[in-house]
Structure formats: C-alpha cells, structure tokens
C-alpha cells in the first residue's frame, strides 16, 4: 500500500507511526513536494489480518527471528517455554535501567526482543543499550505497544 499526492503526482513518504497497543495502527505520510500530510488509521481487525501474514509492511529492516510469528502472535505462550542462548560476539552491553525495562517484556518474546535491540544497536555502531537507544530502536522497528 502506497499513497500518491494526486496534485503533485509524488509518492508520499511515511514520517511517523503509532501503535498504542490497543490493536490499532496509525501511519502518517507527507508529500515531499507540497508537504500535505495524511494519516492512515487501521482498526484492530485490519491490523491483525496483515500481521497474520507474517510479512512486514514497508519491507523488513531486521533479519527474521526463529519462531517470529509464533512468538509475536501467540497470546498463551509460556513464560519460560523458550530459553534464548547467550549473547553473540560483538553484542552491546545493557545499562541497568534498560535491562530492567527489557525484563518487563513477557518471557515468551523477551529473547527475541533483546536480539532485535542488540542487532539494531550493533548495526549503528552503538556499544551500549540505554533507555534512549531502546526508544529510538522501538520507534524505528515499529515495536510500539505490547510492552516492548
């Protein structure tokens, strides 16, 4: 799905998104020429339909994680059903408060979320995950909502 500014015949660019955690999604687009802005709002059913396809709208920015669909979509996943192995070489360190926030993520997805943050930070040459780094990664990766 793409948006075209009919006046300018220019493809609109996304510049912000919001997933408040209630199943809805808001995507904001702007015309690069006349700067007109629009927002696309989806209801939980539409959001869920797209999620069930296990594809990333806008394209993937991270490598697919093992059991990604099951881990992100199974509501009754066991807190300790999965045990993620130790950090990869070159992984950034975590500050105490960043680690504390991560621990609030459900255990079923925690390891996967840690991996996403680590890979995001490492790709940008960041050697320590802080709360600020988490916020930036969260917005960039579209992890808003769901306590991630």
């Amino acid at each position, binding site marked *: *799905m*793409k948006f*075209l500014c*009919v006046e300018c*015949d220019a*493809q609109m660019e996304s510049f912000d998104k919001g997933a408040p955690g209630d*199943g809805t999604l808001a995507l904001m687009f702007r015309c690069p020429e006349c700067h007109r802005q629009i927002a696309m709002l989806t209801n*939980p*059913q539409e*959001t*869920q*339909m797209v*999620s*069930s*396809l*296990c*594809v*990333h*709208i*806008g*394209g*993937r920015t991270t490598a*697919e994680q*093992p*059991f*990604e*669909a*099951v881990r*992100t*979509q*199974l*509501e*009754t*996943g*066991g*807190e*300790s*059903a*999965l*045990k*993620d*192995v130790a950090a*990869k070489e070159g992984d950034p360190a975590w500050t105490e408060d960043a680690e504390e926030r991560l621990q609030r993520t459900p255990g*079923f997805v925690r*390891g*996967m979320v840690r991996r996403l943050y680590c890979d995001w930070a490492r790709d940008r040459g960041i050697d320590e995950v802080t709360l600020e780094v988490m916020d930036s990664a969260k917005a960039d990766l579209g992890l808003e909502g769901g306590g991630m």
Partner: protein
Amino acid sequence: MKKVRTYYDLPAGTRSDIAGQLAAQVERLRRRLESVRHTFAVLSGKGGVGKSLVTANLAAALADRGFAVGVVDADLNGPSMAKLLGAGREPLEVVEDAVRPALGAAGVKVMSMDLLLEGEEAPVNWTGPLQESFIWRGTLEANALREFLSDTEWGELDYLILDLPPGTDRVIPVHGLLADLGGVVLVTLPSELSRFIVSKSLTMSRELGIPVIGYVENMSGYVCPNCERVGPLFESDGSSFELEKGVPQLAEIPFDPIFGRETESGRPGVLACPESRSARALQALADRVLTHFEGKSP
C-alpha cells in the same frame, strides 16, 4: 478522472516487497529441510481414530532401528506428540537461527505447540479480538506450521513425520509448504463411517498428487488383557480400502489397553511392551514404511 500512476509505476525499492518476503520464507524452509531425507504425513480426516498414537509409535519404532527421526505435531490445537513421546517440558533453546527441538523416546526430535504453551491446560490463543479470530486464525496456523518446519534445528534426519489434525482439508497447507512431501499414511477404523470420512482424505491426497503409502486399520480388534485373545471391536462388513480404492493395507493394529496406557504415559508401546500384538503390528507398519522409502525390505 485524473490519470494517476499505479502501484507498479512506483520505484520498487519503496515497496514492501511482500512477494520477496514470502519467497524468503519459502527459501528458509527449503534450506532447513535439505538435510532431511524423507518427509511424510500421518492423517485420517476423522478424529478419534488413534492417529497420534500410530504416529508416536511409528516414529519410535523407526528411531529404535537407528534412523534419525523428527516429528512435527501439526495438530496445533490438540497437540499430543510431546506427551506421547515422553518429551520433557524443559525450555527449548533458541540458537542463532533456530529453536532446538525436544527429545522424546528413542531420541525422536519433537516440535509441538504443547511445548510452547504456558501450561498443560492453556489453549492456543492468538493476539487480537478472540471473537473475530476465525478470520485470520487459519493464516496464523499455517504460518506457525511453517515455522515449526523451517525454524526447528532438525539437523540430519532420515525421516520427518507430520502428525496432522482431524479434517480432510488439513493436508492442503502441508502440501503448500512441502510440495515434495514423500507420502501420506492414512489411519482409519474398521467401520463404514470412518472409511467414509477417511476416503475424502484419500481423494484429496490423490488430487494433490501426494503419494499414498497405504492405510492403517487401527483398533482392528480388542486384545484381552488377561488371555491376550483378540476379539472384534467393530462389526466388519468385509470391505476395505485395499479392495475398494486400491490402497495397500500397511497394518492392522488391535486395541490393547496396556499398550495404549503405556503410550499415553510417554512410553511408546513399541518400546515399553515390544512383545504385545499392537507393538508387533506397529513394527510391521515400520517395515512397510521402510520398504516404501528405502526400496527394499528391512
């Protein structure tokens, strides 16, 4: 109306490339299964015919003969493979690009939804409004099955067996994922009603071009736990798939309460009571399956 550009007029780099993402999933699956020699599915179409018990014991029988065997529990909403194969509920390790399977009887590798749920009584609930989940549930389940196949660290396997849930349509998504599925084993009871339903699975498999290895007649009789004599459980009308549909019968497995109890306790009867009639029938089934895939009698 003003003429506007279409989706395909836009630069490719700015698109979601959904087709590319799906192709990557297919490629991931293909790579994972490169080290698996044979895949086949056990199905019936009808519930309550003892299909999972047959799968668990067949897997254990093959593994006990030295073959490397994995089982995918494709019955996401009624998973039983981990329990029947005695796989522990230890946390599954997530490594670089895969999840390590649980180990069951005779070293059978198992992946089952049961191992991922928060407890024995937890159902499979997906995110999103439950009342409307019927709309996307099928898609999510197909993706979960894909991940069980592609994201499990199977390693080198001789046989990967899929235990399918009841439903004559359940072989369709499996065929979509595994176009080169090596075959299906049908499980039925010696009753007209069971054959009536299982015949639909047979038709579906044939229409999809999946080789039908044969059928198993489960609960072909009742083994008395005292004298071990076998008596009838169902009134036979003398008909069979072999006669009516040209499908080879692979085994007749009598119902043996001791054998069933052992298997339900996580000790597959083929290993726990190998001299029982049911175990001998299942070993005969393993012989036939090996003959089919290995091209010679074991």
